[in-house]
């Protein structure tokens, strides 16, 4: 059951990323390129994706997940150094390449050598993240 749900969700996510044009880095960079040939497509994708989720979060009230367990609790609304620094680093890489994790995975079969190298570097970065995060916490405590 859980596996079937995961597969269906992955398929919908992959189809959506392809159809929306979000695996095309020129479209994503076009959205971020406010001083260039600005492309608003990403806002429509994000808006479109948020609509079903608004209903989904409502439906989580007084209910349990279909496959059992509990729904994820909301993290306390704390803005820590990790959230800010991590998002800055992510945004820089996103702007440089036009790829975020979803499209990087989804386009791996047609992104050529560059796409494979990006995915490998991203996975290497994920391996390094706990070390970098711990370093960040140390400098936070020292300050």
């Amino acid at each position: 059951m859980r596996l079937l749900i995961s597969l269906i969700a992955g398929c919908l996510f992959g189809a959506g990323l392809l159809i929306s044009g979000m695996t095309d880095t020129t479209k994503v960079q076009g959205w971020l390129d406010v001083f260039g040939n600005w492309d608003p497509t990403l806002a429509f994708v994000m808006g479109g994706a948020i609509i079903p989720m608004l209903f989904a979060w409502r439906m989580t009230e007084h209910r349990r997940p279909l496959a059992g367990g509990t729904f994820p609790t909301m993290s306390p609304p704390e803005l820590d150094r990790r959230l800010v620094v991590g998002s800055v680093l992510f945004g820089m890489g996103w702007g440089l390449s036009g790829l975020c994790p979803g499209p990087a995975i989804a386009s791996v079969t047609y992104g050529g050598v560059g796409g494979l190298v990006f995915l490998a570097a991203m996975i290497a970065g994920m391996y390094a993240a706990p070390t970098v995060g711990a370093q960040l916490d140390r400098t936070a405590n020292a300050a």
Partner: protein
Amino acid sequence: MQLEWIWGLAGGLLIGLGAAVYLLGNGRIMGASGILGGLVDNSDRTLERLVFVAGLVGMPLLLRPLMSPTPQTHLTGNIAVIIFAGLLVGIGTRIANGCTSGHGVCGISRFSLRGIVATVIYIAAGAITLAVLRHMWGVI
């Protein structure tokens, strides 16, 4: 141009539907960096994560030949930029505990302060990066 917005909206609805299925079905947040990062960290639910990734890779592989013009990634050919950007995305999303799908789609729709702030920050960081590197220095 107008057609691209409609495709964007249609694709976005599919993405949101996937996130809704994942949430209401498995009780989990559909975040690409979290699902892949969990595999990297060798945390729980390995098979679920692998099956999700299989769908995420498989569906574009199946659908792409049906689309006209055939979608391309248009990724830069500069390998140094690709490696540097990939490292930044990998480290950044894991430190911030989310990316465009987790903080963006799932966080904003829940009115999560962390999700909204993260999204504003990474969009601003991306826009500034492009403004400086493309328009000031002309290097990308």
